[in-house]
């Protein structure tokens, strides 16, 4: 995105608002209305404060007590929570109240902006949302003394663009974005991203409405490193999706809800999450997932403590617990996503070799080598991408 465009967009809004303002003859109302105005935040200041907080972080050992863990639905083996309570004392209140990163953010935004606790000690957020929380200082640094197991993190996730030293976040689970398809309908294995655009499947393909997933995948098709893509490249990919959509290639843009369409045979091919397909396969072995030869986007969901967290020691004890390979193995076997903990596979090899050898849970090396994390976009670029994609998906 060029400076010029940035400038132009800014002035356009400003001009419009000024033109509107002059035409107003209402008096009295402005004062009432202005009283409900928003809050200005400064990311530079947040960065400095983050640094200070991270340098001096110290969460002394205390009783675990009653504390709260917010996660996505069906993303935890509840037996592990019971075991945690038994082993460390206290009582975890486990909420499955994160259904969508943005929706959840909308719910707690005002508390975060006013530096008030959000009533949760751990939240699980996908990369781009975790990045937003970090850059605005809405996170509490992790006291690594309380999380010795953090050393078990797999090499490729030990550092990430928005949190290079993993001072605030730890990956929870990852998932690959690939092709989910019904081999009976396609008649062949799908190996390439180009298959999503194959006219043979016209109107029987679904695409993700989340641009990080869909535009990222299209960038990989064109041989662009999606983790380092700039906004112009991303907008180009969105345009490509738009063109195919106008030609009727895609039946719908979806979140997780493509699974019903795939299971019911309404579509042949979906851009899909690896973990979902494991669940679907148990009902219908004709449903397949494949890694693309051009590479795959991966999402990472991250554990983090929100700023003003009330039970940091409890949260960190949980982090440490989840990074114990024994626990990580059980979790991976239950949620069917990719574990960020070293040693989990070896343990499963003994206890549950079927899962340890499932390429969707422990991806083969040649696929893992071509995994791409989401690009780090500036807030303005992220917004531009979201808006461009929203135009395509019609909302």
């Amino acid at each position, binding site marked *: 995105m060029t400076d010029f465009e940035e400038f132009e967009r800014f002035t356009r809004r400003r001009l419009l608002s000024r033109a*509107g303002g002059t035409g107003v003859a209402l008096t009295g109302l402005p004062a009432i209305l202005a009283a409900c105005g928003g809050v200005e935040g400064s990311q530079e200041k947040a960065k400095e404060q983050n640094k200070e907080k991270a340098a001096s972080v110290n969460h002394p050992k205390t009783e675990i007590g009653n504390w709260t863990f917010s996660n996505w639905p069906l993303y935890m083996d509840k037996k592990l929570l019971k075991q945690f309570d038994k082993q460390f004392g206290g009582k975890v209140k486990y909420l499955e109240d994160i259904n969508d990163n943005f929706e959840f953010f909308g719910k707690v935004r005002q508390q975060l902006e006013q530096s008030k606790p959000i009533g949760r000690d751990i939240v699980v957020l996908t990369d781009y949302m975790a990045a937003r929380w970090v850059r605005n200082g809405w996170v509490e640094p992790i006291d690594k003394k309380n999380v010795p197991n953090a050393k078990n993190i797999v090499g490729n996730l030990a550092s990430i663009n928005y949190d290079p030293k993993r001072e605030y976040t730890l990956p929870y689970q990852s998932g690959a974005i690939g092709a989910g398809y019904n081999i009976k309908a396609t008649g062949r294995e799908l190996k390439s991203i180009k298959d999503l655009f194959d006219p043979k499947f016209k109107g029987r393909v679904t695409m993700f409405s989340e641009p990080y997933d869909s535009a990222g995948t299209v960038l990989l098709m064109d041989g662009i490193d999606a983790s380092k893509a700039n906004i112009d490249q991303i907008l180009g990919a969105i345009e490509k999706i738009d063109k195919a959509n106008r030609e009727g290639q895609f039946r719908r843009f979806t979140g997780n809800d493509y699974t019903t369409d795939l299971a019911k045979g309404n579509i042949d091919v979906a851009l899909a999450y690896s973990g979902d397909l494991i669940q679907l396969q148990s009902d219908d072995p004709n449903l397949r997932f494949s890694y693309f030869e051009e590479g795959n986007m991966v999402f990472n969901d991250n554990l983090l403590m929100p700023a003003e967290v009330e039970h940091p020691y409890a949260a960190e004890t949980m982090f440490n617990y989840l990074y114990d390979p024994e626990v990580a193995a059980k979790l991976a076997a239950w949620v069917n996503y990719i574990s960020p903990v070293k040693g989990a596979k070896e343990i499963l090899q003994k206890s549950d070799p079927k899962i340890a050898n499932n390429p969707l849970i422990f991806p083969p090396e040649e696929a893992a080598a071509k995994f791409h994390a989401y690009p780090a976009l500036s807030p303005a670029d992220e917004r531009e991408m979201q808006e461009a994609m929203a135009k395509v998906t019609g909302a």
Partner: protein
Amino acid sequence: MLRLSLRRRRALLPWLFLGPGLLWLVIFFAIPLVNQLNVSLQTGDPETGYTFNWAFGTYSEAIGDYHEQFLRSIGYSATATVLCFVIAFPLAYFIAFKAGRYKNVMLLLIVLPFFVSYVLRTVSWQLILSDNGWVAERLRDVGLIGEDGRLLATRTAVIAGITYNFLPFMALPLYVSLEKIDRRLIEAATDLYASRATAFRKVTLPLALPGIFAGSLLTFIPACGDFINAALLGTPRQYMIGNVIQNKFLVIQDYPEAAALSFILMSFILVGIGLYARALGARNLTEAAI
């Protein structure tokens, strides 16, 4: 107890009756409305917050970007309202005049779907209309839809879904107004040599007008803002303004534009109803209803 003069008490009485309703409306309608009006005139972004600065430009931008979805919403909900009327009128007529002792059972049947959640009912339509479902296959057999044609994810599915979900809102007011009609009036009309059709046109229909008016408003207004049917039974090409507003509020979190869109929709509907009421003669309607 405080003793007040009779006149005082008389003066306070209306407020006592209106009070609870008024308070409710102020807290849960008027204040949020002013708040959203304020939001619609702000600028900013979700991360740094929004500030109020008379940004009327958002309104023209919103119309420019989403007039297609506006028109579609009005088109779909108008079609669904007409369909509802066509289906519900004979139904209500039958229940009011012919159902006899089955009247209550039939009314219960109309209300029964409400015992299941709205979203769940619509999801079950997904299954009914699915490509390999019974309905689509039978229609394919008789050639009403093409070999690789589909029902789900089409305009037909969305309008059918809306019609289904809002049918009771049309049927019940129609039933009430038909039920109230004094049969002797129809008898009198036929006594005066009106044919049955003429009696229906000149007596039954005009007396049912309040029900038609109420039913069509109860159907059209919520249908206009509906997003569930388009989201579950349609594709982006069937998205209505409700889908846009939902996405703007919850995902993109462009609160000002979402609020502006809501206000535009509201004024659209208000003007529409005004015209409709004038066409039907609302004054007579309210009198007739009383």
